[in-house]
């Protein structure tokens, strides 16, 4: 089981309270698709992804970014058992969506970059460490049901 210090729990909760899901979600997913264009392979049915502008203004991508970000809520509300919280989502990503689990890490990295952009100096190194740890646990949980 993952051990969380009180400081880590506080830091992670703080980040989430500052999160504007409707803006951070779309921007994170958009950046992922722009910075790591091979991730676009999973979004064939999402319309125009031709360039950065198209991606950033694509309503389907925006909606999906919000969905994905809310997916983190489960981990936030079950921090002492993130592993099992994502069993079904892991199966979904493996069996149905066929997403290479490496991509989870890429999206997580983009999320950290976007949050840094929003919080500026409030996003201290310690906060980054706690949040990065949180995301790496989620990423690991999402990869568990792959075989």
């Amino acid at each position, binding site marked *: 089981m993952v051990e969380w210090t009180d400081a880590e729990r506080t830091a992670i909760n703080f980040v989430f309270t500052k999160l504007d899901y409707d803006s951070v979600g779309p921007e994170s997913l958009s950046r992922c698709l*722009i910075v790591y264009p091979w991730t676009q392979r999973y979004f064939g049915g999402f319309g125009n992804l031709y360039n950065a502008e198209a991606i950033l203004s694509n309503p389907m991508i925006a909606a999906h970014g919000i969905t994905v970000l809310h997916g983190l809520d489960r981990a936030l509300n079950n921090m002492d058992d993130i592993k099992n919280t994502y069993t079904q989502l892991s199966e979904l990503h493996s069996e149905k969506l066929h997403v290479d689990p490496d991509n989870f890490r890429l999206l997580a990295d983009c999320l*950290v970059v976007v949050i*840094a952009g929003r919080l*500026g*100096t409030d996003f201290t190194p310690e906060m*980054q460490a706690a949040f990065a740890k949180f995301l790496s646990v989620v990423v690991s949980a999402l990869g568990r049901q792959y075989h």
Partner: protein
Amino acid sequence: MSLSAKDKKNVVDFFGQVGGKAAEIGNDALSRMIVVYPQTKTYFSHWKDLSPGSADVKRHGLTVMTGVLDAVDKIDDLVGGLLSLSELHAFTLRVDPGNFKILSHCLLVVLAGMFPAEFSPEVHVAVDKFLAKVALALSEKYR
């Protein structure tokens, strides 16, 4: 993965705008790397103080950022331009190349935090690609 003309322009223009804050950027990036990825501390066992913003971290942050800005000037021939730095990293420092990715990520986080308006998605991808190429050039002499 190679740098397009547009990538190069984005990198050169962006660092032209933010290069003046090299010391601050380097200090913040290195501080974050040490805190967020504690395994990187193993390379700094000879420092007195590894806490964020310490004298050692500040000094070395500037050294690293100066190297990055130098690489921007040599963007058209990174392997050739960074040859001696590559030899340093390969034979003397022997930093595991996996750590270049870690520091690059921390640099992106700092740049996003300090320059949210300038660090657009296009600049983000250009800088990410550039840092990857710098890392590759630094590993050139490893084996």
